[in-house]
């Protein structure tokens, strides 16, 4: 499995750190506890396409959103996280 970093080109997996599901959204600060439990602990965990955060620590040090199939490890797309999610910065 290799990831095609939009800044650095195709790189090996050792350069990246995984941070999990990129579709979860941080609730408002005054949101009820259930929303926070949902955000911190519960996951869709799909078998199939999965949007996930990867950090390119040994390269450009950018956060990326990778769309990848969890049943085949086929990578369908890589894009910078900032453009994809308003939460990317606060979650890092």
């Amino acid at each position, binding site marked *: 499995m290799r990831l095609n970093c939009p800044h650095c080109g195709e790189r090996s997996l050792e350069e990246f750190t995984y941070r999990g599901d990129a579709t979860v959204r941080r609730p408002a600060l005054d949101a009820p506890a*259930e929303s926070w*439990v949902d955000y911190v*602990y519960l996951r869709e*965990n799909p078998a199939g396409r999965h949007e996930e955060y990867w950090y390119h620590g040994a390269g450009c040090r950018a956060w990326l959103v990778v769309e990848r199939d*969890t049943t085949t*490890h086929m990578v369908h797309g890589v894009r910078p996280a900032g453009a994809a999610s308003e939460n990317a910065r606060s979650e890092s």
Partner: protein
Amino acid sequence: MSSERYSLFSLLRESLRGHAGWKPAWRKASPQAAYDIVIVGGGGHGLATAYYLARRYGIRRVAVLEKGWIGNGNIGRNTTIVRSNYLLPGNAPFYECSMKLWEGLEQDINYNAMVSQRGVLNLFHNDAQRNAYIRRGNAMRLHGIDAELLDASAVRAKLPFLNFDDARFPIQGGLLQRRGGTVRHDAVAWGYARAADQLGVDIIENCEVTGITIVNGRVTGVQTSRGPIAAGKVGLACAGNSSRVAAMAGLRLPIESHVLQAFVTEGLKPFIDCVTTFGAGHFYISQSDKGGLVFGGDIDGYNSYAQRGNMPVVEDVVEGGMALMPRIGRVRLLRQWGGIMDMSMDGSPIIDRTPVEQLYLNAGWCYGGFKATPASGLCFAHLLARDEPHEVATAYRLDRFGRGAVIDEKGMGAQPNLH
């Protein structure tokens, strides 16, 4: 239903008959229309659950539904290690219960599972790690579990070929649980399947659950690739795929599925006589009775249902092996494989009711599921039969995450890929 009992006498009898009289270990059952309890997942935990339901709780109208064949999942993909060297109060009694069941397993199910209490030795490499292991060992002894602290010379007497004087990670000693060891993993599945079958449980292979039928918030059965099956209660024991199956009942779980790789080498003469773990990296190794070195390390670290991993983790595991035990450097690798782990958000399992009535969940075993097989089966059977948690599994509640009562043995927080 086969009632044949394995014994020295039956072995001698079959030896004289050219071994032509052995019967299949369990029937190839077809699904009936209805059962008292349906277990989804014919892995070690599902089969053990069915066995204890029939044996200890007297519930025999039980079906175990397996989408593939018995032994195809994680029960046939682990590194066969059993131990109960846990620190936290929520975990220690449960895993010790499991250890005791392992000790009596072969007599209980009349099957040679090759239970071998050869010891599990966790090495430490610095003062802080020694202190942590002293604390763990003391916690274990307070729970009535055996634990023994070895200094470097005691480890050297046991495993003289380790890399003791490594500049970065010298071996200072280890925490030894002598009652830990290995168990032949496939035999656990086959033995439980046979024993459950003899008590009347239907083990239905190639039967994938495609839907869970819920009427007014209560489970009434499952839909399968072999037709609908009505059930009084449904228990999910499908680690690796727990999220997918629970989603059929509208549940979201605190679980991610991750791939863990394991490895076995060509057979060698015996030289590693206990399970040994490296404390400065993630690497654990034992030698099977056949002579192969069985070893593994970290999970790959990203969500996966693929049952295969990638090269960086292979390299990491092998580096750990070389750092600990340089003499294995020229051994040839025979096989390498991957299994899908139910990585829970605190690294501990779930054995509990669900918000759906009569639907029960056994999940989140991370990569510690094999050693838990007997106790998981016993506790899940207890929950299914009595509708209350078994006394050693009271902490494994589904709502513990919301209550802040997580059981985080490694202290990693809600980061499944770090547990």
